[in-house]
């Protein structure tokens, strides 16, 4: 597979390390009332779609960017690659 890195252009997927569903960006609030429940869902439950999947890849043999890759799990076609940090900021994550 080839991942089109937003900064570096097309790179072989073997330069990257895979983590999983991009929902792992959404770490819950540890102070929430139901934090245990929220963290359980966050850590263990997956949509695991057959189709479009937003997922985290890390450019370990490269610039060490975490990327959010939108890839179809049925065809492996990649339709979008974003910097994970940008995604996280956009989703309101901060400090």
């Amino acid at each position: 597979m080839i991942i089109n890195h937003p900064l570096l252009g097309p790179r072989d997927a073997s330069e990257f390390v895979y983590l999983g569903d991009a929902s792992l960006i959404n770490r819950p609030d540890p102070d929430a009332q139901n934090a245990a429940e929220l963290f359980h869902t966050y850590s263990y439950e997956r949509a695991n779609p057959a189709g479009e999947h937003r997922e985290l890849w890390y450019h370990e043999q490269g610039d060490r960017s975490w990327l959010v890759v939108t890839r179809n799990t049925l065809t492996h076609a990649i339709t979008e690659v974003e910097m994970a940090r940008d995604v996280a900021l956009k989703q309101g994550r901060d400090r």
Partner: protein
Amino acid sequence: MTQSNRIKGGLIDRSQQLGFTFNGKPMQGHPGDTLASALLANGQRLVGRSFKYHRPRGIFTAGSEEPNALVQLRTGAHQEPNTRATTSELFDGLTAISQNHRGPLEFDLMAVTGLLSPFLSAGFYYKTFMWPKAFWEKIYEPVIRMSAGLGSLSKLDDPDIYDKGFLHCDILIIGAGPTGLEAALTAGRSGARVIIADEDFVIGGRLNAETCEIADGPGADWARHATTELASMDNVRVMPRTTVYGAYDHGVYGALERCTDHLGDSSGKPRQVLWRIYAKRSILCAGATERPIAFGNNDRPGVMLAGAVRTYVNRFGVAPGRTVAIFTNNDDGWRTASDLAAKGVDISAIIDSRNQDAPTQIADARVVMGGRVVDTSGRKGLTSVTLANGEKVTADCLAVSGGWSPNVHLTCHQRGRPIWRDDIAAFVPGADLPDGMIVAGAANGTLTLAAGLADGRDKATELVKGLGFTASKTPAIVAQDEPADLSAFWHVAASRKPAWLDLQNDVTVKDIKQAHAEGFRSVEHLKRYTTLGMATDQGKTANIPALAIMADISGKTIPETGTTIFRPPYTPVPIGALAGRARGSGFRPVRHTPSHKWAEANGATFVETGNWLRAQWYARDGEKGWRDSVDREVTMTRASVGICDVTTLGKIDIQGRDAAEFLNHIYTNAFLKLPVGKVRYGLMLREDGVAYDDGTTARLGENHFVMTTTTANAVLVFRRMEFARQCLWPGLDVHMISVTDGWAQFAVAGPNARKLIQKVVDCDVSNDAFPFMACAQTTAFNTTPARLFRISFSGELAYEIAVPARYGNAMMGALMQAGKEFDAVPYGTEALGVMRIEKGHAAGNELNGQTTATNLGLGGFVSAKKDCIGKVLSQRPEMMRDDAIRLVGFKPVDHSKQLIAGAHFITRGDAANMANDQGWMSSVTYSPTLGHSIGLGFIKRGHERMGEVVTATSPARGGDVQVEITSPHFYDPEGGRQRG
């Protein structure tokens, strides 16, 4: 033996003779021959035995689809089983032996299985060999296994070298027949970067095997000129002997180039190169494969595909027989006849299954339109064929053509499904092609010459335009389409003798019928039950006819019946080539510590720690074994001072205004208030609450930290921290870089450590100025930048000093020099391990990814005042159980006993079984300090069981030892030494 079947013509170099042997028999051939063509030239028709019934078999094809003519090539460690004679280039000195027979090829004792064939029908083995039960493994299976397989491995290490390479292009053209060449010319002339690859050693594909004309000259000449033109273009790479074996995601192709397989000796050059080709677009021009017709005894040596007969006659100048009969369902059979006639080979009969007029006249040949071959004769080679009316026709070769199947394989590697075309009675590529691939020529069902050339040209033009190149305006070349009328015909139903489909695995029409009767009607069931198409040729010639017969039996159409899935590789690829140079000591890169050379020169024995090689111990003269060395290193370190290279610990440089806050998220314990110039131990959890890693982090400045991780987790911790930085807390001002390789780091430990280190560094290291857990940026020997940490893994007064890695080797020498007056010893990982167990520190065996902070006795390090990764989930009920395991120390009640790591604890009096399992011993060592074996381990409620004696049971190794539960801190539990 003379080359009795050699005839005129062909693309062979008759000026040179090549000698080779087959089953020890000397034979001759010429450059340009394959082993198969040379065998035929020498009159060798019987070349092997089939898998199941050991039927005599001959050469069936002239290409990589060959099911029969597999030989064991070369000898000794170079021995190469199951090698297709049809694709092996002949070289001087080649040796080949036939496979799968006991006794000589001509008198195979195992041929008796043929007599038993009524009882060995499809799937017979699933229905018997079950009684008595013990017989399967003792008797039945060994017999079955003995008859399994075809060729043999030498059992010696593969002596050849294999390389890997990466190529990039605009257009990859797979197959260099007429379509591929015309596509390559079109694309190449436009300026696009083109790679054209072909599995054959002569470029041209069927042009070399046919008598067709292009541009008023022989097709083979045109192919040669085209190759010359392509080779002259800088933007084109022509790769003969290269099989594109797989189409992978996003335009990545696997290709195998055979570099020295055609030579007697590779002379140290790589035997093969495995290429990974990155192509923006590709054109599959892989041609088509001829398929046979099933009829009685259609497997005898001498029965051959009609196209292969033409290949041998036209390309190799070999007559596969003296008197040839032809059985066809299409015009191709007639082409074979005219080519044979042109070379003066006798044709005894042309049997055409079609009920129509003969398409052409062939002098002297008997023509039977609407004819059928029902049987053949000749035990080890064809002598005659029998027609439906019982008449026998003399023939030592029968050329069979059942039409052509496009080579759609690569179009299906990404799960695309081919579609059926009735007009050519064949599957062609479907719409769902791999990324960037289009298909042209015969592979796309365009089976005739002129149409194929035009298809190649048009498709290439379309592609180069799409890529932004301007297609050249070279005029179309002149060629004729050959007649290609066909009427589907698969199987002579009137045959009463076994009609073979899969020649290698011996699957017959009857087997297909039986599979259907037993309910194995899905094509995948059919394949798996009968083993159809599972041999080394993957059914390239057999599958479609078998499918047609299955469709017929089940009353469905062929497309309704469907195909099995084509999967990579297109043709088999040696494991050695897939592995390349990553084998033996080159399996993975080696990381040397900065003091590696010093250690080598000073008697170190090394140990693999991940990819690192670390000094394990330093043997001295007179020491009888590793224990002597390790005990000495520990004793002398504890008595005076020892030095150890600890560079392999992960080092992460963390900077930024929010660095401290960031560490607070990462570590369980607090780091906000760590003063500058201080080091703190830190514990990390995974988000699921399990202990992950530990180490120390030093605050070198207000906004500057240096973290150490364990050696094993260096990469993983860094990765997770980058995740936390970029994805979880992107608003923090923090930056990190791994400096593991940037700094060489040495532990200097022992009562004399301070004296030694004071001689080296340029700062005050007195206990007041530089107390336990202090750190500083300083210099060594007035010049060398250095970082000094007062931390201790050994439990002694200890420092770790880091210098830029390029000074590491010199630093090791300098430290030893400075330590000479104290009898300083270098120590390795074993002594390091002994001292950490004596001190009760957890390491990899304890931080095994299954233990929690509480289990490790580190619960106190999880701050109640702040969140950190893993904190919430670490508080789940079952992770907080009262009876959870705890890390404690163990010592044998009888001090002379040795403890075993991996032993399980059983409460005294309980039976030794897993129901009574209390925990396990994780690390053990002989403690030279205490004079007996000690261990660390996990046992339920361990912290409440101090002094209790339990059984450490290890039935797998070492037996039972009674052990007493103790504190894990065997040595200096108060820590006075490290603080002193």
